[in-house]
């Protein structure tokens, strides 16, 4: 795909803009993206907005097969089935569907009803507290995007920006 701006170089940055209920997509090469002041770290998102853009431009996750891998720790569903252990906290998001089914079988329930953990309440240190809350918002943002609830996504994005 060529860059929407210069029509010369390959588009490397895929930007989704949400204005009100309107969603527009912009495909830019790294140079034009930089010229517009857009971060070009899409491949390795380092901040929530990057994650958001990354999530938006990803194709819908395929039906989770054994080959599916957690992007954070590289654990595959096959590894999990062999060892019975997940590699990191993000695996729970990566294999959400398969896990929900498994949890229902093992525990007879798939939703936590015990003590809730809110970083802002339990973590007064702003650095660590912020991280956990941001992570939670990011997860919700990814879900909103996947469900195409763009208004919710926009609100969450604003919250993330404010926290940053």
């Amino acid at each position, binding site marked *: 795909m060529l860059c929407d701006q210069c029509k010369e170089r390959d588009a490397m940055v895929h930007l989704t803009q949400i204005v009100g209920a309107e969603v527009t997509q912009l495909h830019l090469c790294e140079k034009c993206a930089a010229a517009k002041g857009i971060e070009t770290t899409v491949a390795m998102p380092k901040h929530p907005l990057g994650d958001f853009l990354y999530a938006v431009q990803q194709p819908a996750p395929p039906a989770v097969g054994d080959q599916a891998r957690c992007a954070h720790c590289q654990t595959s569903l096959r590894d999990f089935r062999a060892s019975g252990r*997940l590699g990191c906290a993000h695996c729970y998001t990566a294999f959400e569907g398969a896990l929900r089914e498994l949890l229902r079988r093992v525990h007879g329930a798939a939703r*936590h009803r015990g003590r809730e953990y809110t970083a802002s309440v339990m*973590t*007064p240190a702003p650095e660590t507290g912020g991280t956990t809350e941001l992570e939670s918002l990011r997860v919700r943002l990814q879900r909103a995007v996947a469900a195409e609830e763009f208004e919710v996504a926009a609100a969450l994005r604003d919250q993330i920006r404010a926290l940053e």
Partner: protein
Amino acid sequence: MTLDLSLLPDGGMPWITASGPHADIVLSSRVRLARNVAGFPFSPRARDAERLEVLDRVREAAGHSSLLAHAVLLRVDELTASERRLLHERHLVSKELAELDTPTARRGSAVLVGDEAALMVNEEDHLRLQVFRSGFDISGAWERASRLERELGDRLPLAYHEEFGFLTSCPTNVGTGLRASVLVHLPGLVLTQEIGKVLTGLQQMGLTYRGLYGEGSDVVGNFFQISNQTTLGRTEDELCDHLARVVAHVISRESEARRVLSRDAGYIIEDKLWRAYGTLRHARNLGADEAMNLLSGVRLAVGMYLIGGLSVYTLNKLLVFSQLAHLSLAEGRPLTEIEANLARARYVRGVLAEEAGGA
């Protein structure tokens, strides 16, 4: 690093005093919470440097908690296999953390031992908080575990998911991460052959049972560890209350079985238990399982007031200190199985003779 157990408050076994409710039937009540620090892979998947960083952060956080501020830190990764076995025999580290069959344990693995609580670090999960109480006291264990968890959670960002709760390496622990367990001695139900029905009943009520050393350990000496099977979908209070209600029922069944034994087979039981005591007092060669079974008989005799002058505390101590790593420690060298059997008989004879003398 040489392991100095004298540094540990109560030797790391606050339950051994037998001071809690129903201590003749219930050895200990335990609540364990599994937690992970956000931002790090789970311990089995983490690199050495990441596990060491987790350990640093946990130490720092524990230093500010009321229950672990003065805890002793034992670096399990710097201990010999025999020293790790010693901690395992005291229920301070799990089989997983002790890695009994390997020359060295996983880098960054450690345990913090405080007066009332202990904390395994870099087990299957980054944190395994444990509170042991003497006798039947699940609520006391939960109250302390809960306080410790809040104190640590105030300083460490924990891995949490709004739908799945606290995230753990193995999904069988996810949600509350809570495993409440009670170590009970049920010789009355075994002798009256009621135990099968009781154990089936436990499973029907969502509970599970294991041997003296938890997961993967055999049932010896009529000791059963009863615990909740699931951790998700119910609140911590519900899980603890349910276990407590069922265990209270099991205790009353055991007491009833002992009454029946006493009424219907009085002299047979009395003879059997005194014979167990006699063997322990005089044997020269005692295998580990044999000792456990004989101690079970003596424990029942003490519970049924057949043998006086012997405290439940002494019986608890004998259970732990007559095991291989403890005998090796006392002898100052690693023992073979045959040497351990001789040392075990000597040790048990000595303790019982001392108690009998004092009675």
